[in-house]
């Protein structure tokens, strides 16, 4: 079958979809919104595929598109874009990880959209500030401020959780 998205795009989607969905989940907090965000981003990537593929780092482009879409939806619409799910979090059975994921989910929900995006880009995508600013479409100072405030709020929230605190003390 001929590729509908361009040479190599189909393979890119197959390979990157799980990782991008995961990023979407972290950004939006909802598996359903994650799918919507990822789909929107990948469609844009597909439309620009010939240009992106020539430059390399297609995955980075897709991540950047997701981050910008996530932030710009709020900016552009100036209203609450509804989403989310009535389902509880997808928590694995392993107790320690489940505890962490559940606590982090709650903690991330305390953050504003931009703070959350900055935190996810920093700690999940391991991006430097310059790239975070680029991905979010803001200045380095703006990204730094969002990251700092987001991290600080996360720290405040997580440090009140005795289970997390004990894990930190144990140096795990």
């Amino acid at each position, binding site marked *: 079958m001929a*590729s*509908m*998205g361009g040479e190599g*795009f*189909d393979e890119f*989607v197959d390979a990157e*979809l*799980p990782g991008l*969905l*995961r990023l979407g*989940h*972290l950004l939006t*907090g*909802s598996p*359903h919104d*994650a*799918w*919507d965000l990822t*789909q929107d981003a*990948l*469609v844009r990537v*597909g*439309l620009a595929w010939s240009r992106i593929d020539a430059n390399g780092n297609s995955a980075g482009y897709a991540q950047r598109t997701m981050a910008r879409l996530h932030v710009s*939806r*709020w900016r552009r*619409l*100036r*209203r*609450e*874009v*509804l*989403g*989310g*799910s*009535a*389902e*509880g*979090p*997808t*928590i*694995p059975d*392993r107790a320690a*990880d*489940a505890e*962490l*994921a559940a606590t*982090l*989910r*709650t903690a991330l*929900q*305390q953050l*504003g959209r931009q703070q959350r995006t900055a*935190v*996810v880009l920093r*700690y999940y995508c391991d991006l430097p500030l310059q790239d975070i600013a680029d991905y979010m479409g803001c200045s380095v100072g703006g990204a730094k401020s969002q990251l700092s405030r987001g991290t600080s709020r996360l720290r405040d929230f*997580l*440090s009140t959780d005795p289970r*997390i605190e004990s894990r*930190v003390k144990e140096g*795990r």
Partner: protein
Amino acid sequence: MKAMHPLEEEVRRAMRSPGWDVPVPPEAAQDIRRAVSRRRGQRRGLVTAGIAAAVLAVPAAAEVAMRGLDRTTISAVPQSTVKAVPQSTVKGCPPPVTPDGAAIIEWVDFINLDGREYGRLVPNPQTLVPGVAIFPGASFGPMAPVPGDLTRQDLGERVGVVCYRLSDLTLPPDYQTRSGDAGFLPVGTELRALEGYAPWFRVGAMVRGGLAVYELVDRPDAETGADLFDISGKVRRIAFLAGRREPAAVTDPQDIRTLVDALLAAKLYPVEHRIPEDAYGTEVRLRFFLDDGTIVQRGYFPDADLVNARAVEPPQLQQAYDAATTGR
């Protein structure tokens, strides 16, 4: 490199835990490829139409942009070249309108059922961003006060079905949503009543194995607040949220009743009665905690007498709000 705080290491680790994995929906990759293909076709149509408009020296794009549409961002030109809008595959659904323009519209997750527009509830009000609150928010997720979790067991009789997923379609910029339209729900999704709620207020749908709950945003025939809120006798606490702080809460049953009654009795101006956004003033979020643990939340703009973008006639609601916030 600066050493990372142990808590930040925990965050980094937690973000990599399997809890954040999202199952890849069946045919997801195929859906994306189809969407790319479809958007390419739309682009070609838009480019052709744009050239035609330029040649004819018709400032159509500007005109389209000036019209504006709720919930939409539009980049559009006349639709002489865009291909036919697909027919719904669901039996009994009306035919689509004949488009006279093309638009790329950013839809929010809404449904239209019998002329009423519903917005999808978010799992946790804390995730809402400050801004102009137009759509409702409610909580039934992990942060919700127990025991308000809604499940598929709460679904009742079928009250409607999604005929068109508008995010899939090419539509004129002045398209008016109709019963059976949805922003993102798949065509054929059944809309069902929810136990404990009037269907005009809340309905549910199963989406990708999960329950999605939709709450009334607006209805054109609403004359008073009671036509917008099915909360009479169900509220156990009210909070006012300004920004991310919760400066005031009403817990006295009498005060709660007074404020709820004022909201339900408040007369609404017609939908056409619009107030410029720059006149909204300070936003307060009215958050009604219901007996079943769910939350109904609306943006309230005391300076403009607006609830959820509908203008209400002063002064009863404002007086009740003032009394509740000042403690009388």
